[in-house]
């Protein structure tokens, strides 16, 4: 048995944790969790060498370590800076960080098309979350936005370069999962783009994972494009015996139909396991899969709208006001419809309710 490893004490936003040497500030902050974890658009814990590019995870180091307590002069990228023993980090408690992060978000958005209403990523887009949480409500950018021609990346993957924030995640994915990377970053500066140079299909059993690692809607699933909004879908964990990959996936249902298959993601939006193209694009029948149960979705996510877990209903005040009598119409009219059929629970209907749901003799949703 080796000697017990010495743990490093690091204080982030006045909360102290002990982490192993070699942990990045970002991962230490993720151990604390919540708002203290800086946002990360380009860092991906499963991709070696990723991170440091988007600059949204900048934090202030107000004391370098116990041995050398000088503060670092510049804000540092928390995803690529390792903790030292006795380091003191300020993230949400630092105005400088908040200001810089707001600036980075503004700069990330000046050339983003903001076409969320027609973008398939909307609802599970990291850039969307980031701009809601850290961005300004308006932009000061008054010039035409940068646009790109669409590139065709084969039968499964659509590249919409205009939305790309050049996080390099898909480049690292192709580098580390496939034996030959055929796409990369061309040109430099603000006209840099992800491309295959000569139009070429990405053809590898695991290349579909670039869709899952893409933080924005630049790489989308062609088999799912424009089929549905993610928040109308119900994710279910499922698995199958796959000779190529772990076979552990999330199925996205609407009604009985599987609209798409993705890898399982953790609370930071990162995949647990890489999955193969066959699982992702070919197996779209429930009969292909063994269902493990509903996927846990954070109640902050729009995907969990209409199927909240553990929510507390507001206190009913009407009987009090009315001297103990119950009103004819209840506040939760949107939850249980008393008007037409009280036994229909709207929240249990897959997708939005239609008039057909209330027609007499319709037994579909009464079960």
């Amino acid at each position, binding site marked *: 048995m080796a000697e017990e490893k010495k743990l490093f004490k690091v204080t982030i936003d006045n909360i102290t944790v002990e982490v192993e040497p070699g942990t990045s500030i970002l991962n230490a902050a993720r151990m604390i969790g919540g708002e203290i974890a800086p946002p990360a658009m380009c860092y991906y814990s499963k991709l070696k060498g990723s*991170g*440091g*590019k*988007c*600059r*949204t995870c*900048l934090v202030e180091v107000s004391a370098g370590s116990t041995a050398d307590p000088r503060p670092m002069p*510049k*804000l540092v*990228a928390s995803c*690529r800076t390792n903790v030292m023993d006795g380091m003191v980090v300020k993230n949400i408690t630092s105005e400088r960080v908040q200001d*810089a992060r707001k*600036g*980075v978000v*503004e*700069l*990330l958005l*000046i*050339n983003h098309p903001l076409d969320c209403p027609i973008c398939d990523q909307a609802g599970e887009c990291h850039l969307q979350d980031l701009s809601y949480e850290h961005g300004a409500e308006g932009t*000061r*950018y008054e*010039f035409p936005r*940068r646009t790109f021609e669409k590139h065709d990346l084969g039968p499964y993957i659509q590249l919409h370069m205009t939305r790309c*924030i*050049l996080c*390099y995640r898909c480049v690292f994915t192709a580098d580390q999962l496939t034996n030959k990377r055929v796409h*990369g*970053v061309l*040109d*430099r*500066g*603000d*006209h*840099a783009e992800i491309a295959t140079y000569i139009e070429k299909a990405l053809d590898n059993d695991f290349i579909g994972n670039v869709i899952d690692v893409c933080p924005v809607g630049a790489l989308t699933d062609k088999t799912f494009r424009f089929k549905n909004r993610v928040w109308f879908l119900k994710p279910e964990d499922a698995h199958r015996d796959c000779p190529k990959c772990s076979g552990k996936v999330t199925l996205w249902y609407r009604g009985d139909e599987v609209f798409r298959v993705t890898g399982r993601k953790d609370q930071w939006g990162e995949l647990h396991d890489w999955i193969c193209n066959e699982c992702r694009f070919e197996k779209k029948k429930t009969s292909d899969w063994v269902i493990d149960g509903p996927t846990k979705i954070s109640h902050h996510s729009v995907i969990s709208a209409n199927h909240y877990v553990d929510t507390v209903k507001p206190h009913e005040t009407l009987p009090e006001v009315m001297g103990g009598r119950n009103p004819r119409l209840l506040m939760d009219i949107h939850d249980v419809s008393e008007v037409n059929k009280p036994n229909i629970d709207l929240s249990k209907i897959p997708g939005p309710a239609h008039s057909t749901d209330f027609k007499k003799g319709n037994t579909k949703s009464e079960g």
Partner: protein
Amino acid sequence: MGRKLLLEKAHVPGIRNYDVYRREGGYRSVEKALKTMSPDQVTEEVKKSGLRGRGGAGFPAGMKWSFLAKPEGVPRYLVCNADESEPGTFKDRYLMEFIPHLLVEGLIVASYALGSNKTFIYIRGEYAWIVDILEQAIAEAKTNGFLGKNILGTGFDCEIYVQRGAGAYICGEETALIESLEGKRGNPRIKPPFPAVKGVWDCPTVVNNVETIAAVVPIINITGEEYAKIGVGKSTGTKLISACGNINKPGVYEIDMTISVEEFIYSDEYCGGIAHGKRLKACIPGGSSVPILPANLLLKTAKGENRMMNYESLSDGGFATGTMMGSGGFIVLDEDQCVVRHTLTLARFYRHESCGQCSPCREGTGWMEKILKNIEYGKGKKSDIDLLWDIQRKIEGNTICPLGDAAAWPVAAAIRHFRDEFEWHVQYPNAAQNRNYGLAHYADPLPIATAPKA
């Protein structure tokens, strides 16, 4: 007349060839270092000389050498940064073109000190003809036993290779240079690890500017202590300044850092005054990335002292009233130059040269250029000036490599010192298309030690 160490023999006919260079005392330092000194002694000598990196940052070269990790069984590399692409800087070109053997000689000594058996010169792609000159010099040195196996019978092996870049300013940043040298896309690496620990092919590497390497030769020849006596304070030795712009005698000058800026511009020995008898308006003393200064702050510091041509004096007053020595690209603007247009040119350059890896620089440089273009062409708004200031503030310090800072500083300095001129452009867009703002009050003596306008 200042003392010359680097360019002393530059005008000897045929100095480009080995025979003449050797006859003029060349390669003495190689003989001295390899035969009579240990590698650590050479490093020690460079430390004593106080030589500071001549590429722009001014980091002490001896210190950099001593940081080099020396694990057993891992090769170490010396890389000479000849990717001189800073607008206004052309001193390395002059050095390599006229006395290439000085660089080769310096490289052999430095390689010996650092234990590098494979040394690279990474030269910018546009210097195509200099590659031939350097390769000829390397071949001549090899024929005469100064390169290759067992140099001068001391058992030290060294080869020098010249690698051409492909025309990117960013490859002058040391980690981007290393990436490019390895054959990859020239994106700067995220530090740490520093090149001294993990550089070329993950081996310990030192990257030095051409002029720094060349300065090693006189240091070994006259000893570090003697070298340190030239100059003032921490600015030791001589520095090559490439002067350009509206001056009578543009060119490369070697100065010993004891002269004042005023003398450098007006004396006949150096720039020879402003061309066509015009008046001095502004100057960028260290290459395009360093802050621009108006004439009054350029010649006198905020304390009222004469500003001298050395690292400390030029940066006196911080960015509020000072600037930087940088790489020595001395750009002079006369009274008919438009600072707005000038800033636009620089912003366009940085937008074009941003590698696009990290977001503040990729997006911010383009935005600044567009706003400056509007102001210059009479479509600007008053709020644009504050917006520019805010954008540069969001870029500076938040990027992976110094290019973000280099793009932000010229814009910041131009607004800091020449806000009136920006406002004039916004207020009188039509007049701004037809005439210049002129010298205005930029040469007026400043009240001593008052805070300038923010």
